[in-house]
């Protein structure tokens, strides 16, 4: 009987040598004449353990953490194919790890367990059950189920998904579109990538259901070019879905029609903004459009369009399969369901943590993250990407909830949590926020295009101690102008991290000048 050995194939595992590990296992098994079945699974999201090699045993899957190609021969010698749990690299049964056990995985239920491009694996773990139910429903009934779930857009804006779908359903048009925003550009976020690399059929199923719900027959996944692995796996999964009749002109013999195609972005952060994304899909520069009209009414090629984030669409199969109420049973207040959080930056146990809304930031960073990787004291944490505020220790007891975050001027965004130890220079971070906006602004509106350039200059003057007080006032004023006058969130939120540094770490913005 051959042993099943799992070596993950997501970007993080690959970035730490997973391909070489897999090849070394194959060669070593051949040399020793041990029959093994090598499976390239997705990642469990326990990224600090990658490459996490798992061996199937009678008790369950036993893990070996941070395996290096040079170790393989010794691991075989120590009997790891039989799941020897005495080896120092062995972390025991993977599913018994507290990091995984304490999570509430609805969206990431299959991640790491399956071969991401195996339709059989997907179907064996509830895959395509949601679509099969949706095929028996009227569009309005599908929309009602999504409304009942309380799902809000996971891209960052947190707009109720069901209401967006209803608008598109109610807008008459011969052609409508489903667009998946997979331009995950926020630093510290990788949940979309993990969906696409570890469970791509879930996204395909979610988009197909969205198409049925609003009577759209064409879908596009707008994927960032920085994700070559996701690109390959998505295309492979889409091909298989077409072959199996889950996509195309006659979905599972129902007569319903949905086509799906991946389109690559080209390295522009602004294309994560939904209207800039639509312009880019149309083949133009990614310039932000004024709203209204909403994309739900006049969207891609002027037609009614659902634009949803990967995580929103990935939540849909569960909602249709188990019911909107089952999803809404998780969460707090108006934040229903689960949020896949991402622990990143200076963190000992970085990875994906899917939980119902309500856990505090401190619990997340300590209980899951286990503090900083450097072992130095944690100083600041930026939640919600480059447009999110830097939160000081006094705010770490804030529960993960859209309203609780916005009440203190912070944003939950796409759920990225970037931790910094006490060596960080907060003045430098404030400057970077403006610098990033300068590089990535689409240039259409003045507060963002010019404001960010002036922002860098003013911060430089403050840090040099050049008329620091006057320039401090100027920076306050500039931040307000950008917030009030920008066309989209890029210019409108770039000041958030800057203002948080001014408010909570003022000395660090000034310190340089005083010591100069």
């Amino acid at each position: 009987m051959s042993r099943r050995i799992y070596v993950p194939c997501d970007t993080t595992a690959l970035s730490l040598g997973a391909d070489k590990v897999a090849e070394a296992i194959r060669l070593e098994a051949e040399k020793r004449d041990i029959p093994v079945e090598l499976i390239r699974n997705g990642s469990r999201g326990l990224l600090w353990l990658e490459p996490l090699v798992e061996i199937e045993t009678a008790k369950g899957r036993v893990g070996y953490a941070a395996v290096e190609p040079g170790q393989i021969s010794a691991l075989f010698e120590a009997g790891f194919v039989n799941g020897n749990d005495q080896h120092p690299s062995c972390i025991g049964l993977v599913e018994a790890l507290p990091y995984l056990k304490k999570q509430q995985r609805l969206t990431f239920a299959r991640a790491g367990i399956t071969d991401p491009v195996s339709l059989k694996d997907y179907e064996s773990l509830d895959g395509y059950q949601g679509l099969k139910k949706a095929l028996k429903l009227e569009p309005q009934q599908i929309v009602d189920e999504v409304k009942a779930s309380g799902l809000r857009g996971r891209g960052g804006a947190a707009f109720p998904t069901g209401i967006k779908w209803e608008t598109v359903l109610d807008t008459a048009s011969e052609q409508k579109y489903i667009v998946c925003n997979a331009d995950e550009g926020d630093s510290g976020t990788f949940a979309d990538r993990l969906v696409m690399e570890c469970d791509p059929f879930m996204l395909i199923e979610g988009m197909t259901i969205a198409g049925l719900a609003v009577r759209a027959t064409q879908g596009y996944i707008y994927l960032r070019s920085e994700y070559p692995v996701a690109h390959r796996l998505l295309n492979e999964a889409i091909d298989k879905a077409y072959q199996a009749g889950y996509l195309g002109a006659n979905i599972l013999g129902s007569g319903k029609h949905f086509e799906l195609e991946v389109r690559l972005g080209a390295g522009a952060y602004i294309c994560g903004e939904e209207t800039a994304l639509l312009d880019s899909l149309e083949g133009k520069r990614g310039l932000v459009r004024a709203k209204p009209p909403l994309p739900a009414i006049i969207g891609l090629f002027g037609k009614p369009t659902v634009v949803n984030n990967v995580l929103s669409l990935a939540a849909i199969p569960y909602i249709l399969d188990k019911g909107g109420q089952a999803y809404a049973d998780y969460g707090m207040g108006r934040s229903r369901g689960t949020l896949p959080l991402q622990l990143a930056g200076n963190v000992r146990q970085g990875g994906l943590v899917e939980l119902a809304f309500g856990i505090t930031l401190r619990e997340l960073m300590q209980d899951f993250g286990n503090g900083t990787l450097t072992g130095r004291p944690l100083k600041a944490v930026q939640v919600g990407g480059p447009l999110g505020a830097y939160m000081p220790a006094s705010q770490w007891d804030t529960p993960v909830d859209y309203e609780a975050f916005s009440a203190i001027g912070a944003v939950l965004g796409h759920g990225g949590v970037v931790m910094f130890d006490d060596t960080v220079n907060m003045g430098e971070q404030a400057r970077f926020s403006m610098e990033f906006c300068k590089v990535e602004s689409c240039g259409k509106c003045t507060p963002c295009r010019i404001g960010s350039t002036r922002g860098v200059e003013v911060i430089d003057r403050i840090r040099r101690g050049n008329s620091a007080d006057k320039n401090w006032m100027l920076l306050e004023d500039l931040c307000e102008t950008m917030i009030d006058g920008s066309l989209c969130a890029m210019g409108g939120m770039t000041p958030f991290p800057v203002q948080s540094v001014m408010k909570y770490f003022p000395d660090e913005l000034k310190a340089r000048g005083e010591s100069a």
Partner: protein
Amino acid sequence: MSSNAEWTMQSIQLIIDKLKHKPGAMLPILHAIQDEIGFIPDKAVSLIAQSLLQTRAEVHGVISFYHHFRSTPPARHSIEICRAEACQAMGCRSLEQHAKKTLGIDYHQTTADRSFSLEAVYCLGNCATAPSVRIDDAIHGRVSLDKFDALIAEHQKDMKEAG
């Protein structure tokens, strides 16, 4: 990513013709040309413009808007260093300095022997194992200064063997 000097106007037109029927064909065409040739030659601009019934200015506007597209031949290996916050928290600022010093070039530049080009990138989505560097299509995590040197040496060795 390697530059392929063997392109002709006909070969570019063939790429365009395969894709121009798609709605919003501009980006797919630009990607296909760059994937094939390594960059988007200036001479391709008028062909694209004619085929898509747009002006050359519009095509040029799109090419210059996106960081990914390039109008000049690439180096044999393109190195992208992530400069975004999660990597900053793990020391990417010193990694950038080290890379520039080691290669003797700044961002947007190519080494004299055309082996390496250096670009900044804002997030490779590998943020739990920062700092990250992309070399061609491979992403590398936990890139210490030593690991960076080892990666460069590995690519130099491969180039030497390939001639």
